[in-house]
């Protein structure tokens, strides 16, 4: 696996550093990680500004620019390629914006028309010149990262893959631009109109971003191809956006997600003996799906769990309230509380799994027990219920005093508010309420001692 022209010393150092990897594998992985991080960080701004599809379009349409640069210069030099791609990348932006403005074509259709046409043109140009070069239509789609380590140049005494130099430099440029223009980028990403009023040119920011995306696409092109770069641009940013609400944290997270996707994708590709770029794109998508399902802040499952936990708490408090009212009625009549039949409890809570879980939980925690064919609150349950009832009745008193609501309109809002009143709010309400009974004449339980 030793490349034809390598330096044994450095390669073996690499081999040690990379835990038994060959130097080739290490270089490939390093290139993949750098490429993924570069795309991921830039992509955050595409995701935030809802320009992902423009990124998609640009990564498709740089192809004719590359082909033209090749045909003109007859070489695969980085500078002409970069220039060609930048021109066509910006052209994509101009053309699609122009089509939707002057041709009155809808935005998504104009993107579709422009990038598919340019891409088709690029494929044909490459097919035309493919006779005598190693640019073939397949590699423009999924890149040739496997061959990246064999084309090296010497930098500071180290034989570095040529593609990696471009990718590294571009990453440095993007990071520098992001650091320098962080404030401007942040404002344009979150509040474009505010940015305009503050004198930040929307057009400069827009086309600047387009330029960076086009350049990133070009340097990544050789390694991962044009279509897979879309996944690497969008996935890390979209995943990071689900994990945090702060921009700088999002950028770090995106870089981490991108690097992880690169490592995982590379590993999977080795294990399955298949396309590295393809697996990195797949891993990026998988990371996004994981984030979408599991991210603590905005993931689907945590949100579901939070919502369910809230519903469960409300069901439990409602059930306790019901039991407390029965106890109260019993006290007034001088009898025991009338047990609440299981079926009646289910009906009152709306039935289903949630109600069953609420009942089961109360019994398990000793807040309620089965006695005389139904549920009855234990003394622990009663003291817990007192807090809920207290919130409820204090809120009713407050509403009755401050809003001209009829007496039969007090229960519903109080029933909703009782679950959300903080202890401080209840304290403040009780200070405003001199009387010890609610508007219906029921007594307001005192604050439980020990709290």
């Amino acid at each position, binding site marked *: 696996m030793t490349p034809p022209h390598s330096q044994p010393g450095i390669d073996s150092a690499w081999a040690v550093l990379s835990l038994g990897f060959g130097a080739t594998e290490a270089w490939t992985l390093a290139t993949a990680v750098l490429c993924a991080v570069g795309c991921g960080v830039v992509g955050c701004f595409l995701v935030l500004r809802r320009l992902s599809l423009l990124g998609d379009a640009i990564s498709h349409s740089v192809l004719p620019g590359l082909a033209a640069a090749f045909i003109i210069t007859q070489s695969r030099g980085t500078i002409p390629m970069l220039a060609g791609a930048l021109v066509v990348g910006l052209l994509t932006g101009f053309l699609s914006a122009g089509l939707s403005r*002057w041709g009155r074509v809808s935005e998504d259709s104009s993107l579709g028309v422009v990038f598919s046409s340019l891409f088709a043109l690029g494929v*044909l140009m490459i097919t035309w010149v493919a006779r005598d070069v190693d640019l073939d239509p397949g590699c423009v789609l999924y890149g040739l990262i496997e061959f990246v380590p064999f084309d090296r140049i010497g930098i500071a005494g180290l034989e570095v893959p040529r593609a990696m130099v471009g990718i590294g430099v571009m990453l440095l440029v993007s990071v520098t631009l992001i650091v320098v223009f962080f404030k401007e980028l942040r404002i344009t990403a979150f509040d474009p109109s505010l940015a305009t009023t503050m004198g930040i040119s929307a057009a400069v920011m827009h086309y600047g971003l387009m330029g960076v995306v086009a350049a990133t696409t070009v340097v990544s092109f050789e390694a991962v191809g044009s279509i897979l770069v879309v996944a690497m641009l969008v996935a890390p940013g979209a995943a990071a956006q689900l994990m945090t609400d702060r921009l700088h944290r999002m950028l770090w997270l995106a870089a981490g997600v991108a690097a992880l996707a690169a490592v995982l994708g590379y590993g999977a590709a080795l294990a399955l003996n*298949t396309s590295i770029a*393809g697996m990195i*794109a797949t891993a990026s998508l998988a990371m996004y799906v994981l984030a979408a399902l599991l991210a603590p802040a905005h993931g689907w499952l945590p949100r579901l769990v939070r919502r369910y936990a809230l519903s469960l708490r409300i069901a439990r408090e409602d059930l306790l309230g019901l039991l407390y009212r029965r106890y109260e009625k019993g006290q007034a009549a001088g009898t025991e509380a009338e047990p609440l039949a299981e079926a009646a409890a289910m009906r009152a809570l709306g039935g289903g799994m949630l109600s069953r879980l609420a009942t089961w939980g109360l019994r398990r925690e000793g807040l309620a027990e089965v006695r005389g064919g139904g549920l009855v609150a234990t003394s622990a349950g009663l003291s817990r219920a007192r807090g809920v009832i207290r919130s409820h009745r204090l809120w009713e008193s407050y509403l009755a005093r401050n809003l001209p609501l009829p007496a039969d309109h007090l229960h519903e809002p109080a029933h909703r508010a009782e679950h959300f009143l903080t202890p401080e709010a209840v304290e403040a309400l009780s200070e405003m309420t001199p009387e010890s009974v609610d508007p219906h004449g029921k007594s307001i339980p005192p604050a439980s001692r020990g709290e």
Partner: protein
Amino acid sequence: MDQLIRLLTLQDANTRTVLLGTTILGGASGVVGVFAVLRKRSLVADAVAHASLPGVCLAYMVVGDRSFAAFMLGALVMGLIAGGFIAFVRAATRTKEDAAIGLAVGGFFGLGIALSRIIQSTPGGTKAGLDGFIFGKAASMVSTDAALIGVVAAVVLLGCVLLFKEFRVVCFDREFASGQGWPTLLIDMLLMMLVCVCTVAGLPAVGVVLMVSLIVIPAAAARFWTERLTPMVLLAGVIGGTCGLLGTALSATLPAPQSGLSRGWPTGPVITLVGTAVFVVSLLAAPERGVVAAWVRRSRLRRRIARQNLLRAVYEHLERGGDFARAWTPAALEPGAVRGLPAARRAGLVRASGAQLVLTTEGRAAAARVVRAHRLWELFLITGASLATDRVDRDADEIEHHLSPELLAQLEARLAAEGRLPAGVPRSPHEQTAGPAGAGVVDS
């Protein structure tokens, strides 16, 4: 050329079926594309197309042979999964639709590339012909494949015809449709399903990467020619069919580059570029919405405005002497007004008289009309809108070129009712000074 003609005149049975298949396919894509474009779902179609590659690969892995029907089924399933993914992300997360589409395009395509590489490294894997699915290779299609494509496309067409009313109402006013009790979600899903089927059917001919062009371009091109849905659908169908037919024929007959790996032109890009050509022609030449028509309209208006500004400047210059047949020089006018001079001379409103210029009879009448419109509007602004006298000149300047004869008649009627309608050309309600562009005549 001979070969192209031979192809298009359908002399070979296999070619005949292939061309017929791609033509029907193009027509169906164009028709279903109209709804996708109007519903702003055209790039979802792109994601669905890209996602069908892993579907094809998985189908090959399961069946273990090149079975066209299995490929289509696999692609359809994966396409629907991608569509479902986008819908889920849109509905259940904070990620926006654009990012979801980008993710689906890149991620699923990456999976497809990885799977196809695995297949190609297995013995006999290269025979799967998966490469042809990326850019399309109509040349490698056999007539049974083409027949299947034709049948699927025909089914899509039939679906569009049957659901025409439903699609129309969802495309134009989804909220209204829901309010009226249409099952909009179901209709949306059916539409995406048809797009998906059509995309999948197009894979062997056009390829995953460029299938979106066959959906979007005919619809976008047809949109330039008409404002009505039915003609648009028909036109898009015809354009799509033409793209399919011409693109396939061209890619098969153009002199092929002799590359080692891929012999011949890939069909997809050629079909796309035929579509692009139709689109560009539509963009430029369409009578109402075309760029050329719009440019002609705008420049005609500009010329009219310049001519009218000139006439008014001349009129106001001559007014002081009271003799409108008097000769004048352009130097006496404000520089801005002189711009309309060539157009006015061409229209026979101004002619040379020695070194100087005079208004012709028509020119005098036209100038009087222009000035009358300007001053009537000024009068209206002063009396009707209570604007200060020194403000009206500027406002009238902007509107005088756009006053229709009907509006002028109404204006006259209104001023007459108030007893303020002057006979002939009214006197200017304000001082004639070096005013804004077009109005100014320097006091001498």
